[in-house]
């Protein structure tokens, strides 16, 4: 009973920290309730994970009082901001338009609630089941809970534990370790409580992102197509890092797209935080962080106010590099026993393995067309891009396409240069990699659908309107 209460208190710590970060970044700007909730959950999870990581590197392991202290500081910040009236301007939801709309929303809401309920059930009712969740992430969570990162625990220097991928990023296991610290011991189900929380945050973010272009009902439909895809629901609380990476990357894409349209520095900084969290969640996150920064540079070149855009890009790069460098420096002493893809990445390797290209492309297309796993998400992407081609006039949509192509291209190249048997590796990892890209695909489908609806006179595209709730 008490462990359950402490588990809720842990989530409250995340909410308070996320609330403080969100208030600091969104003060004076117009935001919807969904957006603020999504930001609070996702920024809170990332910020708590990062802070615990840095504090652990400084020599203090996660503890109940440490987390309560963090929450207290966050609460004070929130109260001070409220007293100064430096809060975001809230967009309240408008009344529902018609009965069919209300019924549609209600039924989709039920489906979303069912997906979240399933993720809560699998998280808190089951111990760790998945192999990677145990030997990679769960093992690290146990190590991080047991001792601070300085001095370095023996786990990180024993090559006999190479199967556990000693040099993988630590944000997510640090969050699990934080949950263990607050509930007072290693408790596999309660350690996973952050997963349904992040999954809910991802839904709120995707909905917010698509609301930039669409009204409530189709925006919720896109949210279901993206986050309610059977494979995504299945993996949501498996305690692998893929859902967390997808969530942080979704946040990065949404706020970069918004930065492109509105050039708000707060949106740029929010995206910088999401990119940093993604890079601290999985190694793939480091590679896609580079893609995100490259995309910002390309957009800045074509911007009307090139100088201002490059300054924003520089700020984002500085935040990402700072946020990543602490762990990168600490990681330097860990034996690297895995395949080094960066070292293998050469034109010669690509040339040698070029015969793999057709197999890799066919593998991707087959996986995307797998209706039982993805529903209609990947199938709607080409259809909506043809029917809603007018959306290509929007800079942020072109940016999202660029990100999607670069992201998929990067993963495709990894399969081309891998030293492993490529078909076997694709069988084990391709669907999880597609999960990282799925939110970007969902956002694009949303934007293209908005163009289709405008074309047919069903709705109007409002690229500059703030979401209404």
């Amino acid at each position, binding site marked *: 009973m008490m462990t359950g209460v402490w588990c809720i208190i842990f989530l409250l710590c995340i909410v308070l920290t996320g609330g403080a970060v969100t208030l600091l970044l969104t003060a004076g700007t117009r935001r919807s309730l969904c957006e603020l909730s999504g930001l609070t959950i996702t920024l809170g999870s990332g910020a708590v994970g990062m802070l615990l990581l840095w504090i652990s590197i400084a020599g203090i392991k996660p503890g109940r009082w440490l987390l309560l202290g963090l929450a207290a500081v966050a609460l004070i910040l929130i109260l001070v901001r409220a007293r100064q009236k430096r809060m975001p301007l809230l967009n309240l939801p408008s009344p529902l338009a018609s009965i069919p709309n209300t019924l549609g929303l209600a039924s*989709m809401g039920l*489906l979303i609630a*069912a*997906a979240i309920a*399933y993720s809560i*059930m*699998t998280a808190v*009712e*089951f*111990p*760790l*089941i998945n192999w990677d969740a*145990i*030997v990679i992430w*769960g*093992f690290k969570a*146990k*190590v991080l809970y*047991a*001792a601070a990162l300085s001095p370095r*625990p*023996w*786990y990180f220097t024993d*090559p*006999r*534990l*190479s*199967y*556990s991928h000693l040099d993988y990023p630590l944000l997510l296991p640090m969050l699990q370790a934080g949950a263990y610290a607050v509930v007072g011991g290693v408790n596999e189900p309660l350690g996973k409580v952050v997963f349904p929380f992040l999954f809910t945050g991802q839904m709120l973010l995707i909905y917010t992102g698509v609301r930039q272009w669409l009204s409530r009902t*189709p925006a919720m*439909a896109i949210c*279901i*197509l993206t986050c*309610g*895809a*059977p*494979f995504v*629901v*299945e993996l949501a609380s498996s305690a692998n890092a893929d859902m967390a990476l997808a969530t942080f990357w979704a946040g990065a894409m949404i706020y970069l797209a918004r930065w492109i349209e509105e050039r708000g520095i707060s949106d740029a900084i929010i995206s910088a935080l999401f990119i940093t969290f993604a890079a601290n969640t999985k190694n793939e996150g480091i590679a896609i962080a580079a893609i995100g920064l490259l995309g910002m540079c390309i957009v800045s070149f074509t911007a009307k106010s090139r100088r201002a855009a490059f300054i924003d890009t520089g700020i984002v790069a500085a935040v990402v590099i700072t946020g990543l460098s602490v762990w990168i420096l600490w990681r330097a002493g860990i034996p690297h*026993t895995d395949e080094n893809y960066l070292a293998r990445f050469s034109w010669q390797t690509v040339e040698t393995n070029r015969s793999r290209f057709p197999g890799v492309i066919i593998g991707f297309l087959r996986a995307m067309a797998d*209706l*039982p796993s993805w*529903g*209609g*998400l990947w*199938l*709607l992407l080409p259809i909506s891009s043809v029917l809603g081609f007018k959306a290509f006039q929007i800079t942020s949509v072109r940016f999202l396409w660029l990100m999607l192509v670069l992201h998929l291209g990067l993963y495709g190249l990894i399969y081309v240069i891998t030293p492993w048997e490529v078909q076997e590796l694709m069988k084990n990892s391709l669907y999880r990699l597609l999960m990282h890209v799925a939110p970007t695909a969902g956002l694009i489908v949303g934007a293209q*659908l908005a163009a289709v609806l405008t074309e047919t006179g069903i709705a109007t595209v409002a690229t500059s309107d703030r979401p209404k709730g």
Partner: protein
Amino acid sequence: MILAVALQPLLIAKNQMIRLLTAAWWHGETNDFSNRWHEIDQAFSQFPGTNNLAVSFNNFSATNPDDMRFVAEFAHRGSYTLYPRKLFCAQDGQIIAGGESILNSAFAPSGEWLRDRDVNKILRFTQRGGEVALSVSSVTAAKSPSQAPEMPNLIRGIPIAPDVNEPGRR
């Protein structure tokens, strides 16, 4: 679009893993679902204390996927369960990426090596005619007399064979 959204609940309901976990939860079998992990945890929980453990595998093939999986499951899950204590399955400095590398490591530690690393028990899995037998022996102090072999009821379905108490014996 409407069709895709309408199809989604049906696809979720048909997903094998979602169905399995939901059924396990419905029947109150959430712990039985990961039975294999519990068996391994229970096996290692019979060695309380602060000492480290070692594990060796005899007559297992580094080319047989079932053997590799068995070895990886016990060694990796065992390391996870025992932490912060250590479970040794190879010599120092060896890179272990899975069951295959454990079997290829030909781990045959001496008594001195085990004592230096504060190991007080060796778990030996031996495969005979498709069945796996487990024996446990104690690592004794350098010049003290041997203790009697310990044979805790370790793992369901795996017969336990007696073993002599010689540190480092394979």
